[in-house]
């Protein structure tokens, strides 16, 4: 099973090797971890790895798994969706809203040739502005939103096609 962390396309190759009572062995890449899990009445539990105890909670939401380790929180998704998209040559081909918010500015129009790093859209959420940029040179195929519009997390804002001048890099859109 491969996982990704939300917002991070590096894949984590993880697999449960065995479990026996509270003891669980997990392979992460080429490392193996032995952990002991003790559930707590509050719905979480204590995970012991290398003699260190972590208070953990976990829940599922849509196709994500959310866990907390002490004050740190994590969101994992199965890697399939991302890799499928890459397999179809769509990497960087969609500029996606990283959070719900309001489209403040659309800086490009259909047919524009854009360079790597060029700002495309500004979204406002929680009084903060986030600028989404092109990961590589590309042509703006379709602008799906207009200024002032509210968008949901994950909404496709702009579609890009590979620029004739450069090949699309195999990575995801990045938020600057």
């Amino acid at each position: 099973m491969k996982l990704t962390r939300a917002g991070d396309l590096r894949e984590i190759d993880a697999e449960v090797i065995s479990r026996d009572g509270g003891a669980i062995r997990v392979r992460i890449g080429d490392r193996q971890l032995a952990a002991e899990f003790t559930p707590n009445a509050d719905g979480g539990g204590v995970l012991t790895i290398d003699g260190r105890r972590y208070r953990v909670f976990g829940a599922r939401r849509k196709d994500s798994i959310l866990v907390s380790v002490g004050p740190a929180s994590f969101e994992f998704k199965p890697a399939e969706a991302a890799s499928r998209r890459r397999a179809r040559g769509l990497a960087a081909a969609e500029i996606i809203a990283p959070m719900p918010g309001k489209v403040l500015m659309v800086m490009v129009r259909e047919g524009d040739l854009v360079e790597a790093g060029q700002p495309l859209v500004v979204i406002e959420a929680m009084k903060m502005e986030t600028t989404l940029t092109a990961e590589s040179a590309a042509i703006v195929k379709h602008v799906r939103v207009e200024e002032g519009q509210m968008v949901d997390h994950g909404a496709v804002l702009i579609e890009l096609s590979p620029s004739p001048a450069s090949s699309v890099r195999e990575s995801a859109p990045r938020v600057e």
Partner: protein
Amino acid sequence: MERRLTKLLVANRGEIALRIIRSARLFGLKTVAVYSAADAKSAHVGAADEAILIGPAEAAKSYLDIAAIIAAAKHSGADAIHPGYGFLSERPEFAQAAADAQIVFVGPRPEVMAALGDKVAARRIAVAAGVPVVPGIEAAEISATREYAALVGYPLVIKAAAGGGGRGMRVVAEAAQLESALGAAAREAAAAFGDGRIFVEKYLAHPRHIEIQFLGDNHGAVVALGERDCSIQRRHQKIIEESPAPGLTDQMRAKIIGAALKLARAAHYTNAGTAEFLVEGDDFYFLEVNARLQVEHPVTEMRFGCDLVCEQLRIASGGKAPEPAAPRGAAIECRINAEDPEHDFRPATGTVLHLSVPGGPGVRFDSHLARGAEVTPWYDGLLGKLVCYGANREEARVRLVNALGEFALLGVTNNAAYLRDIVASGQFRDAKLSTHFIDSFFSGWEIGKSEIDAAIVAAAITAGGAMGDIPSDGPALPAGAERRSPWDDLKNFELWGSRR
């Protein structure tokens, strides 16, 4: 001058609305919450004695709508309004509208707020009162500004006259950047504050941000409740605040407090306010006055054993600003924000699926969060303020590290682990405080590798069933449905939590 208040409308939301409601009740007042459509199920709505819908989610049409809030106050028979911080809290026209409606505004008089809200005007008041300010000028003409810059030397900082809280600030490293920076700053200021005036100041290399809490009453008295060090900022936004300021000599403290009191008296200030200063070496410079309750006021409350909202209400009803008790111990606050510290601190939203709140001696958590609460993209992302007291700074600091260790929040990405790592760091322990602290020591922060490993194992356990009884937030699979979950590959073991 005495006016007995009976009912307070709280013109705010989130943790501060809840916090004001608590003290209003302590002061013996009935409370009225106002809320936008996005906040109908929020904590402050349930906590007040009455709640009034004032508009849709957009702040401009609800929490920033003066007419709607004044109408709600009249409708409910509220005889006072507390603006909290942010939103309308520093808008003189709001204070004026309240006064026009015969409603007591819990804050300074409109004309005082107007004078101090303009940074250039506030700077003039400070200079007139003999309070040092950062060397700088109003930027009118580019050639004059260029000359001035050459005189005091680069780097410089450009600020909007009408700005606040770090908004509209930009640093100019060298002469070549000056002209375009001035133009951009003026345009930004005009767009953001409807006022394009800017000014240029010397940029200090390692300044600390130190501010003085004061209270002025309608009888002419102004008292100070010590200082707060708010040097730990990220992009000009405070994230960790403490009192007292570590290492500040009694002499410096007395000087800065004296300057703040001079300034407050010169401005004929009433109610709670904060004078902000930059401190470098033996010099200190006035920055601005925040004419309202500050986010970080709890550190002062813990040290002085007082309730600043109660004091505000006492002063607003004609009472006197009390001579403060002697301060004791140390207090540190950190702001837990809905943002992703691993991805450039982009804002996060979501529904709280689980919340563990720290407790015990010396721990205070001011928050509107509860399991089920929704964090929407409409307002700022402050989820809560975790504040710890200790007999000394180190005790407060370790308590805060431990309290952050007890904090857990599922469903809304937040900066708690980032804050924990900062507060636990040697640099913070050693109080290497300056406004560049984050850039110097935490710009490349990453979550610990062993925590990621633990998270992966926890994810595998969660995938194998619910970990315990925390319900899924997503649509449940239809009973007997054939749809294959992407997590089924990991689902090779039973539920670990108890079945009930």
